[in-house]
């Protein structure tokens, strides 16, 4: 068995290999395999898996790639994420991908789907719309049609058909994946020092670029070792991070928050990995319907989904209480309309519940963390002082 240190080392390499060598190698082993790149926030990877494909999260270039041509495609007041993705598209990093899915997260990602279409990148460039109507006979049917479209895109490439059993099996594997992740979060809630936020991040992000079976094995090994004590408890406060669901902060920022005395006990980094709360029925005659039902009824809260009847503010407060957190750090990408437009209402909900909060903005390639570290440090001190 590999140690947690070995696993996190491996994961940090996998997570930030912007050439996606592991996924490409996986594809090269069988001519019917397909690689489908998808953007944040959420995409139901089960359907790709069931069709002999690997859904690979393309979450930006972070601070790992110099943007040479990508900047020429975007005005200064547009977030950083799509520049890195354009850069990857132009420098050949995405060449072996068969197709791309652009979930309905925001107008930037939506329009990026059109840029990929114009550039003819991949065999398909699918904008994947989430329904904003949650009636199963209205939004449910719409969502199922969206799933069908992606499956048809893949079918055209590898002529594979997903049987009921294939789909049930894929749903089962991703159920296990989410359960294992949730167990890690549960352990970290009680013993946050056993696995740092950064280690957790590496492990989760690697799961976005490798087959789920392999990720599940890794998660099991990690969980097994987390049963035992690891690391030293510190006098830190416990925080929830909110607003980082799409453009990912540089790892230096995550590290800085922890070093400033804040255990991150929940977050919306890589939110797609735990979008569905609980299991999806994996023993059914109609697995796609099960996925639809889960989307309509078991989705987490997010800036890209209309929050009618179930406001995000209340759900954030519930999350803070459930995780027994001391405060919230609102940390959003600069120029991220969805995150930043949600922020005032979320802050108001925190204020009403007496939950302290701070906020800052970042770019995925931010290199200076001094100010953020100081801010987080002051936040931590003030909570400790007034607790």
């Amino acid at each position, binding site marked *: 068995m590999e140690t947690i240190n070995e696993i996190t080392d491996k994961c940090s390499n996998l997570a930030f290999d912007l050439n996606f060598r592991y996924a490409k190698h996986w594809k090269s082993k069988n001519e019917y395999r397909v690689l489908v790149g998808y953007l944040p926030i959420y995409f139901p990877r089960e359907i790709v898996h069931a069709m002999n494909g690997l859904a690979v999260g393309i979450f930006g270039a972070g601070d790992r790639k110099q943007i040479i041509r990508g900047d020429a*495609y975007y005005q200064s007041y547009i977030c950083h994420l799509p520049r890195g993705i354009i850069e990857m598209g132009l420098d050949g990093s995405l060449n072996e991908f068969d197709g791309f899915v652009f979930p309905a997260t925001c107008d930037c990602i939506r329009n990026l789907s059109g840029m990929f279409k114009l550039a003819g990148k991949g065999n398909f460039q699918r904008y994947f719309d989430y329904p*904003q109507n949650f*009636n199963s006979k209205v939004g449910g049917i719409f969502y199922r049609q969206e799933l069908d479209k992606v499956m048809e895109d893949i079918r055209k490439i590898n002529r594979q058909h997903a049987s009921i059993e294939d789909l049930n099996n894929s749903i089962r594997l991703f159920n296990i994946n989410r359960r294992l992740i949730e167990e890690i979060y549960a352990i970290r809630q009680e013993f946050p020092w056993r696995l740092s936020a950064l280690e957790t991040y590496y492990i989760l992000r690697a799961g976005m670029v490798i087959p789920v079976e392999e990720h599940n094995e890794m998660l099991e090994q990690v969980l097994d070792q987390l049963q035992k004590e690891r690391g030293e408890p510190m006098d830190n406060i416990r925080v929830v991070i909110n607003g980082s669901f799409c453009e990912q902060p540089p790892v230096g920022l995550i590290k800085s928050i922890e070093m400033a005395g804040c255990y991150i006990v929940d977050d919306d980094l890589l939110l797609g990995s735990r979008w569905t709360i609980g299991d999806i029925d994996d023993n059914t005659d109609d697995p796609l319907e099960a996925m639809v039902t889960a989307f309509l009824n078991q989705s987490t809260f997010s800036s890209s989904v209309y929050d009618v009847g179930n406001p995000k503010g209340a759900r954030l407060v519930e999350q803070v209480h459930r995780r027994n957190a001391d405060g919230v750090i609102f940390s959003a990408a600069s120029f991220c*309309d969805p995150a930043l437009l949600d922020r005032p209402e979320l802050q108001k909900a925190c204020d009403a519940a007496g939950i302290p909060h701070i906020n800052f*903005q970042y770019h995925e390639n931010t290199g200076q963390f001094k100010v953020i570290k100081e801010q987080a440090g002051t936040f931590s001190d003030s909570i400790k002082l007034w607790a």
Partner: protein
Amino acid sequence: MSNPKEAIKEKSMIIQKDMLAKLFTELSTAKENGKKVVYTFVPGNVTELILSFDMLPVYPEINALQSGMRKKSASYIRDAEKIGFSEDVCTYVKCDIGMMLNGNIGPTGEKMPEPDLLLLSYTGCFTFMKWFENLEKLYPNVPVAMLHTPYQEDGKITEDQITYMVKQMETDVIPKMEMVSGKKYDPERLSKMMVNSAKAEDLLVKVLESAKHVPSPIDAYFAGVYYIGPIFTAFRGTEEAVEYYTELWNEVQERMRLGLGPITPEGELREEKFRLVVEGPPNWTNFREFWKIFYDMGAVIVASSYTKVGGVYDLGFRHDPEHPLESLAKYCMGCYTNLNLPQRVNLLADYVTEYKADGFLINSIKSCNSFSAGQLMIMREIEQRLGVPVGFIESDLVDPRYFSYANIKNRLESYFQMLEQRKIILAQETSEAIA
């Protein structure tokens, strides 16, 4: 700077002014008169449906735009930023929130009525959704109806998408309208309104396409925003709108007959030197100054994408009295920002060709990702396909901090020089070819 000139007023302008005055009076007395008020958005609106229930629509973007023109937006935006809105986000939203924080005073100086229904017709822009989530919190007891418009991601409208939208209308939007208005849905009345919609749409297309004529009798961007006003907002489906567009079309025909150029606030444009296609919304805070830069250079905007945000009627769509709900669905999905990028490029390239434009210009709006994300690629595509000179300026809709007059003027001057040189070269090439 010299004093602004007295603007020329044509009859259609007076009709429109009266229509608006009447609407705002109706809005300010709505509560006393028992009229119900629906807040909704311009792109993909279902105005005929609202009017068929005798309710009055209010469009928050129009309030923001008016606030920009009345120089109120800067302080409204500041107030929204004070309560936590980031400097980075759409200024229309902030301006509207700021206006509400300051008593919700409308363009006539009277308080806007509070909504009885929030109708989120969510077309072509995610920010609308966020905007409405904020409005919901401001008006917690007001019912909300959501009308989700699928994006034309495949470059076409499918039967499944139409069915999805019609179902949303039937199961959510119409029942809520019935509840709020206390009236039954009347499909016949709706159909009758659509007869008027289609008539007005025909006339608007004629007006906008008159710019294919050389010299163009209209400016299809700066003046265009006035032409689209009634049909994109509260008047589509009404007799008044038909009357307005009939008059406008008569005036435009007369201008064409006389070979006249567009009317501008500085007077009539006497010599058309450059013909341009413009992509992106205008700036409202310095609208007249902005327009004047083009006027001074003899530039006419012959086609623009902004005048298509409430419907690309020139591609043939008309509201259909035979299938009212289906046609509302198609209308919502057909609005400009709901087109995918390749469709946008094709449309703009066709405009450049069909309207015999000398150049293609983008006014990139800091606030608006829906328009702006991808514009630089659109620009490259147009340049590569057509070889016309492309220009790029940046401003904002209603935040005066992002309108730099000197900067924009400099950039435009260089751009017009480039157009001038190209004209000279083209003329030389033509004369050489003839010789």
